[in-house]
């Protein structure tokens, strides 16, 4: 009989009554709790996903017979002007459907006719005469004439327009002296010296010399919107949400079959490029059928499913392991060759890309038409030779640091494999994972020993070799300082003949394999996930999703 505070039996009954009341309140509150709060935020316009209601409403209004293909892009295009300073990959993708240049790139990255049926180059290689196609109309119905070509070129060359690749045409690569228009259907470009890359630069998807109608700008010369000659019109642009392209009825597709950005381009559906910043959000949108396609990289491939397929293709962005040739240890070519021979590279590439990519030791993408078996010959691991090379070089276990980042998973995976396997082969390597911003600044200043890196695609091998070859004193970003190789590259800067260029590239490749300034691993594959309702989509190396010639049932 103790009457402690309070009675033991009493409190239990009291306790349950209290708990009972509280739980009743809790259950009711949870159900309502979040909603009023969420409702209070109702006005928030989280536009990560184009509002379903709004989309269907817009589609219903003009009630065209055409279906609509919705493609997800990571970030919205900051500008509607091709090749502008502020451009990003979405700009290139969208405008590739709207504007055309005189020439265009095929899938094997060769140059094909587009607005110019044919062109001839003067013997000294300094004059290009283009013969324009007949009957081509701008989106505003005006016919294409040589005056429009001259106007477009002059507009892009004016500093006010902010054209990113202006330097390619006013001196760094080649200088255009004059643009002549002898008659409405011929245009003549005069260059200061012959350049094999003039046409390539003109067709570069990053900053094409797009042929635009002067009505693309207002009276003061300020940019309005692109009035081009492409299969699609630039219909509607809601910044941060989507870009809507509708087919240009009076478009005249070319006769040749479609290849890359060249050939016949048919517009079978409306195109809506929807901005969804978050990769996982894109995936959930695809799963729920709100989008029809998206780009994906090799590390987060979605599980196989009947609702979508993964279209894979060879890429053109070489994944490499750089070696700082000015580093005291790595300046010795024997050490570099030992590193190249220490690891079974094809095996690593296969593990890294889950079998989606092949080992490609050359800076030239395997998809390029000049690619030959010579380019395909790389290094085959040979541990005995590695030991002898290391002995000759007097290597006694010093540690090399291999820099990588976590932002791009494939670079990180490459680094982890190389570090482990090199250490196994007797070359001590330490992994140093830094933040992507710092790795870029280290790359641009050359402050590293080994680095797992990836170059963005260059449309012509000469451009890639141009960026890799050079003198480190005045440009720390170059990797290979062989004067002979630079002289060989400069020798073909003027020649247009494919066989001469191929022969030069083969020689360059063999010199690079011998000097081993860097190890090229593979071209990271181009992967696009598409819903099964979409047909006719093909992959190509330059990572621009081409949605013409594509139907949706």
């Amino acid at each position: 009989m103790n009457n402690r505070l309070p009675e033991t039996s009493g409190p239990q009954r009291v306790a349950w009554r209290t708990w009972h009341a509280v739980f009743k309140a809790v259950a009711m509150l949870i159900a309502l709790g979040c909603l009023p709060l969420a409702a209070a935020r109702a006005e928030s316009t989280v536009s990560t996903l184009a509002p379903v209601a709004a989309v269907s409403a817009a589609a219903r209004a003009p009630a065209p017979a055409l279906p609509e293909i919705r493609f997800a892009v990571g970030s919205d295009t900051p500008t509607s002007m091709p090749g502008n300073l502020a451009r990003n990959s979405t700009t290139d993708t969208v405008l590739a459907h709207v504007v055309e240049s005189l020439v265009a790139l095929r899938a094997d990255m060769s140059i094909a006719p587009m607005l110019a049926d044919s062109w001839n180059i003067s013997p000294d290689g300094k004059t290009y005469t283009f013969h324009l196609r007949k009957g081509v109309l701008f989106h505003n119905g005006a016919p294409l004439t040589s005056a429009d070509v001259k106007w477009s070129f002059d507009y892009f060359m004016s500093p006010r327009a902010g054209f990113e690749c202006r330097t390619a045409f006013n001196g760094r690569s080649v200088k255009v002296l004059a643009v002549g228009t002898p008659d409405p259907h011929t245009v003549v470009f005069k260059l200061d010296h012959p350049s094999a890359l003039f046409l390539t630069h003109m067709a570069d998807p990053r900053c094409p010399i797009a042929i635009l109608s002067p009505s693309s700008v207002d009276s003061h010369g300020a940019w309005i919107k692109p009035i081009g000659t492409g299969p699609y019109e630039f219909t509607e642009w809601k910044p941060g949400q989507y870009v809507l392209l509708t087919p240009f009825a009076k478009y005249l597709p070319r006769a040749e079959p479609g290849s890359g950005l060249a050939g016949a381009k048919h517009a079978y559906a409306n195109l809506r490029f929807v901005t969804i910043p978050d990769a996982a959000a894109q995936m959930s949108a695809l799963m729920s059928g709100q989008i029809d396609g998206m780009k994906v990289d090799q590390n987060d491939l979605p599980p196989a499913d009947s609702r979508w397929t993964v279209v894979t293709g060879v890429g053109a962005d070489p994944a490499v392991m750089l070696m700082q040739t000015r580093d005291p240890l790595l300046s010795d070519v024997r050490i570099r060759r030992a590193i190249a021979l220490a690891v079974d590279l094809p095996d690593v590439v296969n593990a890294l890309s889950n079998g989606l990519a092949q080992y490609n030791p050359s800076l030239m993408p395997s998809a390029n038409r000049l690619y030959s078996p010579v380019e395909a010959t790389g290094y085959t691991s040979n541990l005995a030779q590695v030991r002898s090379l290391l002995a000759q070089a007097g290597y006694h276990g010093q540690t090399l640091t291999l820099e990588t980042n976590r932002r791009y998973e494939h670079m990180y995976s490459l680094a982890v494999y190389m570090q482990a396997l090199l250490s196994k082969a007797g070359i001590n390597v330490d992994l140093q994972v830094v933040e992507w911003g710092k790795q870029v600044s280290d790359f641009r200043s050359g402050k590293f020993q080994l680095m797992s890196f990836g170059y963005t695609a260059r449309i012509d091998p000469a451009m890639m070799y141009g960026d890799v070859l050079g003198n480190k004193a005045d440009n720390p970003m170059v990797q290979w300082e062989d004067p002979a190789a630079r002289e060989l590259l400069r020798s073909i800067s003027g020649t247009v003949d494919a066989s001469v260029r191929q022969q030069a590239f083969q020689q360059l490749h063999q010199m690079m394999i011998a000097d081993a300034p860097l190890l090229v691993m593979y071209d990271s594959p181009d992967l696009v996930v598409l819903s099964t309702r979409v047909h006719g989509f093909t992959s190509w190396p330059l990572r621009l999703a081409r949605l013409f010639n594509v139907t949706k049932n």
Partner: protein
Amino acid sequence: MNLLSLRRLNLLIGSVLVGLLVACALIGQFFTPYKPIDVDLFARYAAPSAQHWFGTDEFGRDVFSRIVAGAGVSMTVSICSVLFALLAGTVIGTVSGFFGGWLDRIVMVFIDALMAFPGLLLALGIMVVLGPSKWGVVLALGLAYTPSVTRIARGGALTLRQRDFVVASQTMGNSSMWTLCRHVLPNSMAPLLVFSTSLFGSALLAESALSFLGLGVPPPSPTWGGMLADSRTAIDHAIWLVIFPGASISLALLGINLFGDGVRDLLDPRMKGVSV
């Protein structure tokens, strides 16, 4: 099961877990079945088996060895950052609380600013400026926790300043600095020690969170947070990569919290009444 033995049970479980953690941290890496960074191309994503008790990860590395090795890294990072924060916070807090005046106001404004400053940017800034290293994380976490320690030390100093024995020491002619060191600091240690056990737990958590965002102790040295972050992509086909690192973090935290609670009850005068 009356109260006393239950409270002691908490302390017992706590010290066992903390003991295990410390053992792993100190001597663990010498007894792991595999070297933590050994890559095995042919045993990728292997399920837990006799060979690999906790299975292997994306690169075929043994998860169990990495957890044992990871304990060392996580422990050193947490202990050092807590000590850093304890040292800096106590000195700044006690001095500014005791002397007050404009010094106190300035310190408080900075403390407020640091509290409003997300630890994230601090961590990234330090990590990148100093280069990725354990000590970068220690400095980042230390700085992130200094404000809260300073606040508690300052609070302690403020209340102690009014206590008669501090006033008596001043009226005896002792200098303020002597009074501070001889009387104020020893008496404000107890609450700080109790707070640091809870701080230790959150430091372990923060280190895991940082390496989760790729800012923590850089790979390849294994940390639990890093392993958990990597495991996210393997949810549907290698769940053991998620379970084991997460479980080890939770068990370590559970140990530290139980141990911390036990220590606090010992130090708490009110508990003395119940003579634990």
